[in-house]
């Protein structure tokens, strides 16, 4: 357990010392939301109807953009090879890294979501449902991303490949994520989102660990 906490702490420390990484993702998230009114026009009714989809696409993109730092730096400086001999199993390492990734990439988005709510003319109940769907859905997205990042870690310039690889697989999260924001749809979409997210979080550490285990060869 000590190693697990140490990995999370190290990733957070590195991100905070590394400078603007978190801020960049956050700004990107807000920007995507902010440019939509310019593109579709300032029609409030239309904007609030599009809002759930826009928020989820913005969150989706900013989570994917941060994927590359998940394993690549550790691969390049040799840490990943050393993790193979760590007391902490590789699956534990991945789980810790997914948690750190979520704290660094998803949590700031959820905190910043009121800004998007204002920009996209969301009312308060809709915004609350957006927060709920992001809280439930983003861990699954981070877990899925970890699998993609692990598969592509040893490829040179694999950075953009991981998002391309996992985007089709993330469609269920997107469908149920935006569906759960719609007030008419009831709770079934939210429950399905929770189910998909839970399965991904449970499976990802082991899948990603398998991919990492062969990545050095």
């Amino acid at each position, binding site marked *: 357990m000590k190693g697990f906490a140490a990995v999370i702490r*190290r990733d957070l*420390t590195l991100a905070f010392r590394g400078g603007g990484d978190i801020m960049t993702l956050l700004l990107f998230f807000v920007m995507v939301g902010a440019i939509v009114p310019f593109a579709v026009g300032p029609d409030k009714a239309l904007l609030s109807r599009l809002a759930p989809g826009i928020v989820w696409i913005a969150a989706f993109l900013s989570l994917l953009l941060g994927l590359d730092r998940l394993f690549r730096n550790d691969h390049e*400086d040799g*840490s990943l090879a050393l993790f193979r001999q760590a*007391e902490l199993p590789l699956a534990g390492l991945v789980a810790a890294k997914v948690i750190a990734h979520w704290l660094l990439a998803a949590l700031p988005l959820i905190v910043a979501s009121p800004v998007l709510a204002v920009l996209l003319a969301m009312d308060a109940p809709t915004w609350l449902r957006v927060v709920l769907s992001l809280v439930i859905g983003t861990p699954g997205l981070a877990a899925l991303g970890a699998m993609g990042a692990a598969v592509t870690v040893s490829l040179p310039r694999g950075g953009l490949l991981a998002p391309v690889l996992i985007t089709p697989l993330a469609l269920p999260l997107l469908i149920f994520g935006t569906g759960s924001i719609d007030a008419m749809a009831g709770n079934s979409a939210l429950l399905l989102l929770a189910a998909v997210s839970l399965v991904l979080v449970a499976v990802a550490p082991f899948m990603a660990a398998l991919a990492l285990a062969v990545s050095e060869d």
Partner: protein
Amino acid sequence: MPAPDRLPQRQIDVTDLACRRGERLLFSNLGFSLAPGRALLVRGPNGTGKTTLIRTLAGLIAPDAGSIAIAGRSEEERPGTDMHLLAHASGVKGRLTVEENLAFWRAVNGGSGDAGEALDIVGLRGIADLEAGHLSAGQTRRLALARLIVAPRPIWLLDEPTAALDAEGDALVGRLIDSHLAQGGLCIAATHLPLALADTDRIATLTLGGAA
């Protein structure tokens, strides 16, 4: 030097090992066995497979043929957790301080050694609070060596342990290996420089690239 507690006993038996990088067969029919308290120096020119042998023993690369048996492991022990690999890429994070780097690896490797003492041994105590990115190559190597001290493990796989080190650093590596062997540890070191080891009776040499 750390107190000479006994390390868990391990024995390595390598039989008919062959390794390939890409299409090229680096070596084949390689066999040796190493008892506790013994060291093997792997010599040979560049490109003869010293690093590949070390990485294969570490379990990072699957051998083309042959087997590596390590005796003495208990049933529930995960393979690899009784080894330390010291490679060119040191796993040192430039934005963490020297002490944070060491504390991280100690936690991840489940070690219980005293970080301050280990930094003392490798001569980095005075700059424990410096970000590791400011270290020279030799100092980075010393920090990587400190990782081996804080989590005692019986098998050391060292790839060019003295690279970038000064004369005093060479002697340090020699002392560390000597005390590791004295505690019943194993050491396999790939190097093309002679190591300053005190007890030459414990050391065997394997030369790659001559016959192949």
